[in-house]
């Protein structure tokens, strides 16, 4: 009997015990699965160039895409405003999914409500669901703002949020003056980064529309959809504090997705105050740290006469330099000595370790701005970001990536793949292998299939804990990313040289 109370075995070891192995072998006889020979043959074929070509000829099927749908981005960005409840109009199942998805990554509560539309609402429209739903949310959860977005059901039947919300207000669901911004977030357009943009624009429109701007000296900063927001936003605030800049972060989820355990469940915590969001119209400029999360929002800010600029996930040396210089230029505040020291320390660390990073090859996938920022840092370390893939990346993104590759000798032979998925990536890794893969938890299947060590630096990360609590932006963040790369390289090297009397001549104490 395999189970023993002194050492209780759960799934991983339990099913490797002889009784279970035997049982599974017996089960296999009843399964009608293909023969081992056939499986090996097909498995090898799926890693061939021939298969790669067929795979890339795919036009309709998507396999293991690396993107999510718009409302996820809407729920995320709404969570970064003070006491704001997301209200997603449409089917309720979707909302259960967004909440689970965010909770699994952040290991935190994620609150959002649905208008719970069902078949009758599909026929008659979801007005009643909106009217009742807003009243219930307002009364039960006491939010300061309710941010309304849509699932694809509401979009397909064409519910009109603007008029629905007005009707709900007339019927007294929430007070006339209560803040209910909204955005249509069709899941069949773009991805979660599009939803982020639409919802943020919806919120700003709600506060800014009809206002006249009285320019001040502050700047707005939009972080974009970011799994590392907890660490990154706090790092950003530290840096801005050191510079002595007046700023507003437009959607700051860092406290909402990192509440303490002290006996109290805080449904709402931190976030950009509604007052600050309203005042943000007067800012001198709005900076987006992720271009692809904000095209419409920035355009909207421009329409008020604000200056705007966008970045691609400020990770690494030059990306941070550029961000700081831009902030300095806009605010007239110099980059302080402390930050210059931090920069020097990052460079110092990179120099110390350069021999281990030089010439390493990488595959990187994720959201377009992350992939850009990550690839840029890899180039700075003397690495080669061979395969760069963003399922939600466009032609324009591919061109930007190509320019980036062209800017460095290490970019030669690197290629960006927009609109492709992780099954394409599998073919790339199987036919043109690289040293390291950078992505998210889904990448573990690629690690298994192609034996490429995975580094998790992109949302969502389900199977490793708490990394998102540390920043990857700025010089400090760069240091952390650097150490993460190095650890993986050294761990692999140790694992490859650990066999006593066979490979351990290279099991060096100092590396």
């Amino acid at each position, binding site marked *: 009997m395999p189970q*023993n*109370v002194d050492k*209780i075995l*759960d*799934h991983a070891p*339990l099913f490797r015990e002889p009784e279970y192995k035997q*049982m599974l072998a017996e*089960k296999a006889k*009843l399964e*009608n*699965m293909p023969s081992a020979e056939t*499986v090996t043959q*097909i498995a090898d074929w*799926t890693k061939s160039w021939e298969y790669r070509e067929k795979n890339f000829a795919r036009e*309709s099927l998507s*396999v*293991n895409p690396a*993107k999510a*749908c718009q*409302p996820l981005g809407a729920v995320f960005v709404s969570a970064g405003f003070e006491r704001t409840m997301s*209200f997603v109009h449409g*089917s*309720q*199942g*979707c909302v*259960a*999914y*967004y909440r*689970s*998805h965010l*909770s*699994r990554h952040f290991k935190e*509560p994620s*609150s959002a409500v*649905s*208008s*719970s*539309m*069902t*078949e009758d609402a*599909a026929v008659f429209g979801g007005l009643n669901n909106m009217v*009742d*739903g807003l*009243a*219930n*949310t307002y*009364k*039960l959860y006491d939010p300061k703002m309710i941010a309304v977005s849509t699932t*694809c*059901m509401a979009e*397909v039947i064409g519910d009109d949020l603007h008029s629905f919300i007005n009707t709900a207000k007339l019927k007294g669901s929430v007070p006339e003056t209560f803040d209910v911004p909204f955005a249509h977030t069709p899941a*069949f357009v773009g991805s979660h980064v599009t939803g982020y943009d639409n919802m943020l624009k919806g919120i700003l429109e709600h506060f800014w529309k009809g206002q006249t701007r009285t320019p001040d000296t502050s700047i707005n900063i939009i972080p974009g959809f970011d799994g590392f927001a907890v660490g990154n936003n706090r790092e950003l605030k530290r840096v801005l504090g050191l510079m002595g800049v007046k700023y507003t972060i437009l959607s700051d989820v860092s406290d909402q997705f990192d*509440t303490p355990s*002290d*006996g109290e*469940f805080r449904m709402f915590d931190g976030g950009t105050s509604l007052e600050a969001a309203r005042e943000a119209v007067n800012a001198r400029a709005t900076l987006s740290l992720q271009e692809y999360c904000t095209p419409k929002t920035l355009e909207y800010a421009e329409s008020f006469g604000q200056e705007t600029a966008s970045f691609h996930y400020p990770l690494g040396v030059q990306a941070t330099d550029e961000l700081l210089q831009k902030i300095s230029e806009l605010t007239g505040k110099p980059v302080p000595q402390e930050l210059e020291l931090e920069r020097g320390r990052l460079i110092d660390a990179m120099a110390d370790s350069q021999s281990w990073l030089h010439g390493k090859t990488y595959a990187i996938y994720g959201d377009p701005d992350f992939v850009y920022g990550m690839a840029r840092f890899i180039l700075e370390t003397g690495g080669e970001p061979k395969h760069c893939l963003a399922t939600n990346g466009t032609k324009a993104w591919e061109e930007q990536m190509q320019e980036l590759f062209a800017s460095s000798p290490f970019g030669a032979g690197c290629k960006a793949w927009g609109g492709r998925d992780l*099954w394409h990536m599998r073919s790339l890794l199987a036919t043109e292998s690289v040293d390291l893969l950078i992505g998210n938890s*889904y990448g573990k*299947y690629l690690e298994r*299939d192609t034996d490429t060590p995975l580094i998790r630096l992109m949302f969502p990360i389900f199977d490793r804990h708490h990394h998102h609590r540390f920043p990857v932006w700025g010089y400090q963040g760069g240091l952390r990313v650097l150490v993460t790369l190095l650890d993986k390289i050294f761990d692999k090297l140790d694992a490859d040289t650990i066999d006593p009397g066979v490979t351990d001549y290279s099991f060096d104490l100092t590396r």
Partner: protein
Amino acid sequence: MSLDEEDNNDRELHARLIAEVLEAYPDKAKKRRQKHLAVAKAPDAEEKAEGGLSECDVKSNVKSVPGVMTIRGCAYAGSKGVVWGPVKDMVHISHGPVGCGQYSWSQRRNYYIGNTGVDSFVTMQFTSDFQERDIVFGGDKKLEKIVDEINELFPLAKGISIQSECPIGLIGDDIEAVAKKKKQESGKTIVPVRCEGFRGVSQSLGHHIANDAIRDWVFDKNDNHADFETTPYDVNVIGDYNIGGDAWSSRILLEEMGLRVVGNWSGDATLAEIERAPKAKLNLIHCYRSMNYICRHMEEKYNVPWIEYNFFGPSQIAASLRAIAERFDDRIKEGAERVIAKYQPLVDAVIEKFRPRLAGKKVMLYVGGLRPRHVVNAYHDLGMEITGTGYEFGHNDDYQRTGHYVKEGTLIYDDVTGYELERFIEGMRPDLVGSGIKEKYPVQKMGIPFRQMHSWDYSGPYHGYDGFAIFARDMDLAINNPVWGMFKAPWKSAA
């Protein structure tokens, strides 16, 4: 204080908590919600005679109230997520936009043995990734193309299921026509499933629709297994999704007692196991909620009887093994006794070790359609007490069955809202809550130990004797971890 008095207090407390949470709602919502909340009453004479401990009388399986934060999912989750997704040698297309398939990708821990991407496909996300033009012009042409591409790139897939997401039913696509046409062309099983998320009120209708799809698109076709040799001891296990290996730690017991498990639905299942099911002698249902429909059909059409069983905790396992054996000859009956005797020392050792650490601890549950009752005795076996339970998507018959598991005075909540659950937990301060990922972190912030009871919190299996040991260990490690003692800063505890 005597036990009875304590029970009375519970009853009063629970009734008061219900009254309090209802006060928070606007009138209309209050009227709807009050029907879903109750304190379990004393059973009437008839129920008592049938072994009922209480009567759990709440309204269920009706629409959720908008805007209250229901914990429920949708029909797609019930079909793709629960019933079809685990069938390992088929490709399941999440048909529609990218989201639903992405969020449910690999999240249910349906273990299987296979070469993923080659002969098995469970932990992959296949989607038609609908774009605006597909919504406007319809997606049938795209779907045809997708089927062709799957057949080309995944030649060992035995079949394809088409799991409809919300838009499909709204734009008038004819996925049945596509399925028929493509089946004819390729000769492979293709199953269209109309499990759009807006149908029904929860995951539950999705289970039903998925069951019907098995009936209409798998059973009603040529017998591919005419030469399959049957035995008098062939059984199917129905409604075990092999979460963390549950079906395996169950199968080993059934086989040890002399039965042959010819099909497991649908954890670690192959299409062949589904097709062949009507040839078995008996269907054993674990998750009644999600698969009773197809068992009733098999009974009517193929004369395969079914019985419910419960493999959570030693008292239920032994009772179930005996009840199953009753349907067979002495060889199997002896087999059941042999199995029970064989594992008794393990059971004793587990109880001896963990009961002292867990006895008297109070537990609140909120799960799907089966576990809110099925796991109750496993807790009792460890001396723990259930003070509240409820279903996301139970029906009337589930609540009836619940009366056989929980005692009078238990707080019962159907389709509980985030607000209610938080208030109930705060008011009752149980020692452990068992529910889902969305509930986990709010509860833990309150300083209350928690186990996810859908995914086994990444542990498992919990079924069978081997599973019971893991279950006991996990409840112990959740409750008796030192972290719960450090929530208050020392300079605050004095205040």
